[in-house]
């Protein structure tokens, strides 16, 4: 087990390093700089620009006058200040200062709550809670729906499949906007700018976020179950005279759970992507909103920090799912042990 964890640790670090490198290169390839970008400030809009010497000072302050590879090592490992003191980079958890939000560090923007509130009220806390809520809905409704449709006769099943296809085809921003128009403007059930402290106002964003993953999970559950119900051992179980419930629970579900869980990984990633849109739609105070602002304003350290957190989340979910499927399916464990001995 410790060997497994060690290998996973190296794998994860490698991936995160690669992700930061890709992000770093791409982000610096975007034309413009943080001081001149079209949407960065009213100044740029008015074509005032920044004073040359001031710009040089700012560049020096954020290290943009260094060569690109030095900037990367500065971000990852750290660098010397002008007075010779050393500061540590991302390896120590120092995500650097934000450019656009003056005087705040990136980790400050993401993790520190407004004054007098708990960690749950920080941008990160809000986003994580929304994703958790959404995945609960997606898994809690998706899997039962898939099981239900797999046990129904063909006609009903086809109708459910068409409905699921429709749910996948609706872009989530369309759904969210419709929800706002119908529920908020039309029926006055929810508020356009709700109080996010009330759990009730979370329901609509979470459902909008969960719809597409929900339909995907239901489809995969359905097709996996159908595949398995045609296996010989299920027929044998039926022939032995076991009840439908026992066949489903012991013989079918036990074998179906691993493919379904493997599929949950990509689906949850989709949910993280959806988060960026849903937060924007509902003006939800999570980090998705910061992300758009950071990319369009070229707030380099903030883009890096957000991508790093995002990637860490996805990688951890993947590792978790891999471990879970190993725990649930003895065959995968056996293969792995054989692979190690070979």
């Amino acid at each position, binding site marked *: 087990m410790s060997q497994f964890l060690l290998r996973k640790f190296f794998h994860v670090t490698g991936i995160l390093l690669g992700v930061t490198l890709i*992000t770093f290169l791409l982000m610096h390839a975007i*034309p413009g700089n943080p001081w001149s970008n079209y949407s960065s400030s009213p100044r740029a809009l008015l074509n005032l620009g920044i004073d040359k010497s001031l710009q040089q000072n700012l560049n020096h302050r954020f290290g943009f006058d260094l060569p690109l590879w030095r900037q990367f090592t500065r971000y990852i490992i750290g660098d010397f200040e002008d007075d010779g003191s050393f500061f540590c980079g991302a390896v120590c958890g120092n995500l650097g200062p934000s450019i656009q939000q003056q005087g705040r560090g990136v980790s400050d923007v993401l993790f520190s709550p407004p004054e007098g509130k708990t960690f749950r009220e920080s941008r990160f806390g809000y986003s994580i809670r929304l994703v958790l809520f959404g995945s609960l809905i997606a898994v809690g409704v998706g899997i039962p729906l898939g099981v239900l449709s797999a046990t129904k006769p063909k006609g009903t099943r086809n109708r459910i499949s068409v409905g699921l*296809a429709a749910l996948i*085809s609706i872009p989530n921003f369309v759904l969210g906007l419709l929800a706002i128009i119908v529920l908020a403007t039309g029926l006055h059930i929810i508020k356009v700018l709700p109080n996010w402290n009330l759990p009730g106002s979370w329901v609509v964003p979470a459902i909008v976020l969960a719809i597409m993953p929900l339909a995907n999970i239901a489809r995969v559950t359905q097709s996996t179950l159908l595949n398995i119900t045609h296996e010989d051992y299920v027929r044998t179980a039926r022939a032995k005279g076991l009840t439908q419930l026992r066949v489903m629970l012991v013989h079918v579900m036990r074998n179906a759970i691993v493919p379904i869980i493997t599929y949950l990984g990509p689906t949850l990633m989709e949910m993280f992507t959806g988060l960026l849109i849903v937060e924007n739609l509902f003006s939800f105070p999570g980090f998705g909103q910061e992300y758009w602002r950071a990319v369009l304003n070229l707030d380099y350290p903030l883009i890096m920090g957000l*991508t790093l957190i995002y990637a860490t989340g996805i990688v951890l979910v993947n590792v978790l799912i891999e471990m879970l499927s190993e725990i649930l399916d003895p065959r995968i464990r056996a293969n792995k042990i054989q692979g190690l001995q070979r």
Partner: protein
Amino acid sequence: MTFFPWKRALRSPTVWISLAVMLTFGLIAGLAPLIAPHDPYTGSITQPRLPPMWVQGVSHPGIPDYPLGTDRYGRDILSRLIFGTRTAFFLALTAVPLTALIGTFIGLIAGYIGGRFDAWIMMFTDMIQSLPGIMFVVIIVLIFRSLLTPTWFHGLVTLVVGFAAINWVNLARLIRINVLQIKHNSFIEAATAMGASPWRIITHHLLPNVLHVIMIWIINNIPAVILLEALLGYIGVGLTSAGDGGEFTVVSWGGIFFSGRSAINSNPLMLIIPSLCILLISMSFILLGDFLNGITHPDQGTE
């Protein structure tokens, strides 16, 4: 010629409906200049924000000349929808096949060669999958938009590149897993024993056996690229293209939807019709994909 159950396909209403929807949209896209009543780019300044033609008895009634009304620049919405179909089809027919080509190539090679090369490629795909997808399409679009010289299609090309750069990963992984399963079959061994070169094995023995995976992947991802385009329009990183009048935004469903947000009271059709178009076309592709999937897994019978 491989087996295809024509009879079953012809008897399935899903297939007929899907094909009919695709064909209709295809015809609209192909004949756009002939059937569009107005130029989608130039508007009449005297007729901005017209409601649909059946809205009468208000201070600003619709006129039959503009059946679905006009946007805030006085451009005909029906014509823009018709030309938007073109954009969607252009993207579906270029971005997805290009992505499929890259993904297939890398997946086949990684699966066949295996070993350390495979491990590195998988590591790289892991990295790309850990990136937030849309954000990177936006970044790539921002980069490429400045690199390419403005032509009428350069906005679309940037989206094609962005889509391909992120989405080849899924197909490559899918194909690699399939190749790993096929590779140990005896027909591959036989081909090796007969002295077939690796390239011949890949193209003549492995590729035909993963072809159905590629087909289904393409069909399932055509909706994805149309959604992505609409999404970029929503974010406001609209696709630009340049003509003789300088840069302008490509006419697309996403763009109409985006500009419809501000016209919600005067003309809600600007939101509804593009969403319906997207819904119809992705549903028909998904259902067709389900049918094809049902052929490769005959026991499921989800058609």
